[in-house]
């Protein structure tokens, strides 16, 4: 068993380290933190806290000493760590998790945990963006193909009736070599989100009179040009609505992320889950704040895609007799 001498701000300075290591039994020491703000600290700043650096990073009794850095800017921390490394310490500890309020006031310690929130937000947004892009292509293709097939039309609902857990587990069994790959994760997201696009577009296509398509063809438009100039603009409101639902689904996706994502790919939903799994009022409050953020995001995406768009919904032409 190894015994480590933990640091304590204002108490465990090099004098106490020296005394305790002379008593014996300690295998390793860590210094009090050296606060890093926005400059690379001079050599003397490191030596003031850890004079052992001048003694080959060991106490007089010969016990190795690690130096601890604390800061909120990763790049500045890295630069200071590099400067410190030139003094050849036995090791460098980075303080990421000091919960003391006096420490956090200056964006040290636990505030770095916010990086996790930002990372989760970024992951949620990029997975959603990729999934909605794929779901849109898939949903459009499905809706167009399903015009002539009742079976295909029914199949669009299949991802709705299967539990996301079953989908994720099934994908893991089917493609074990693709586990924790971005492609599989986005594909799973898209699979669960695309029925919204497919169903909305299929309904809109049904509502289009066939004469519009035929008139465009006889006016010189190829099938592709008819799709671009007539069909797509006329189903655009339904497409946007489907995309909004798909985005909301992807943002709120949980089970698939839990099964298929890498640990570093935390999304907002899995981060909420992690907070709830830990004790303490702080974690509960963080979960509340993240839930609110998630709801606001979903609302924002909805407004952006659906409400904010001008409606070109096909309206019936005026009664000719009127």
């Amino acid at each position, binding site marked *: 068993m190894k015994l480590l001498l933990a640091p304590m701000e204002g108490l465990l300075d090099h004098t106490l380290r020296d005394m305790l290591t002379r008593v014996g039994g300690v295998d390793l020491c860590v210094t009090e933190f050296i606060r890093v703000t926005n400059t690379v600290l001079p050599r003397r700043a490191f030596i003031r806290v850890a004079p052992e650096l001048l003694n080959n990073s060991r106490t007089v009794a010969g016990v190795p000493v690690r130096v601890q850095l604390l800061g909120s800017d990763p790049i500045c921390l890295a630069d200071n760590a590099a400067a410190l490394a030139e003094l050849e310490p036995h090791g460098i500890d980075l303080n990421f998790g000091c919960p003391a309020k006096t420490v956090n006031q200056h964006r040290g310690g636990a505030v770095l945990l916010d990086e996790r929130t930002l990372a989760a937000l970024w992951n949620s947004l990029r997975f959603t963006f990729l999934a909605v892009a794929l779901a849109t292509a898939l949903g459009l293709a499905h809706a167009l193909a399903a015009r002539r097939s009742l079976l295909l039309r029914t199949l669009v609902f299949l991802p709705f009736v299967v539990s996301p857990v079953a989908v994720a587990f099934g994908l893991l069994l089917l493609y074990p070599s693709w586990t924790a790959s971005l492609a599989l994760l986005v594909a799973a997201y898209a699979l669960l989100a695309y029925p919204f696009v497919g169903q909305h577009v299929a309904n809109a296509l049904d509502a289009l009179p066939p*004469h519009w398509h035929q008139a465009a063809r006889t006016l010189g438009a190829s099938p592709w040009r008819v799709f671009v100039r007539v069909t797509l603009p006329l189903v655009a409101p339904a497409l946007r609505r489907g995309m909004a639902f798909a985005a909301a689904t992807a943002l709120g996706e949980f089970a698939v992320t839990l099964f298929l994502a890498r640990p570093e790919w935390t999304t907002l939903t899995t981060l909420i889950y992690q907070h709830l799994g830990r004790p303490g009022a702080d974690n509960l409050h963080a979960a509340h704040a993240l839930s609110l953020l998630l709801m606001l995001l979903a609302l924002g995406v909805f407004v952006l895609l659906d409400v904010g768009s001008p409606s070109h919904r096909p309206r019936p032409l005026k009664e000719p007799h009127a």
Partner: protein
Amino acid sequence: MLDVSGLCKRYLPGPGEPVADRADPVAAASLALPAARWLAHNLHLQVAPGQTVAVLGASGSGKSTLLAMLAGLEEPDAGRVCFDGEDVTHWPPERRRFALMFQDFALFPHLNVQDNVAFALIEQRVPKAQARSQAVAMLARFGLADRALSGVTQLSGGEQQRVALARALMSGPRLLLLDEPFSALDADLRQQLRADFARHIQAAGMACVLVTHDEAEARAMGQRGYRLVGGQLQALW
């Protein structure tokens, strides 16, 4: 010159399709599949440029299918459709330059009046500004220049009909196909537009096939008239 020879098309009703004679309650209630019908059976037709041919027929006789086959929207089972000596039977509709006008006008609701009329020009890669000014000039010939920027849903039935014809003429068609063009309009407007349309079609000097169930309309517009019965054309005048 449109030359249709030996055109055949059979209608095979699917199961559950209500094609049984509605006047006959026994047949209507029958679950048996109705027999296939000939919509076109060895059908021949010639139309010269500047000539309008009217085709009369009861609903379900195959009038609209005939136009769809001419336009390339439906494939015939047999026979040929030729134009100016070229066999266009298997050409896609966009290559034929035959304009088809529907009884519901089929104006695009997401485009305004001038963009509806300019639709074919954009497909011919005419620059947008030029296409629009040509469309407005065409609309002026129909007395609709001031409606160029209106939405098509804001037009009256008669105006929609004239926009539909302007749009069809704008594509510079070699053949104009009219499917019950006035059936959705009231009687007064119908008579007024009939003369108006005949004048425009004659001025454009193109071949025209008019399909209708209204004999007065057929006689007013068609230099020749036929009745479509059992998939064949019987000459009326």
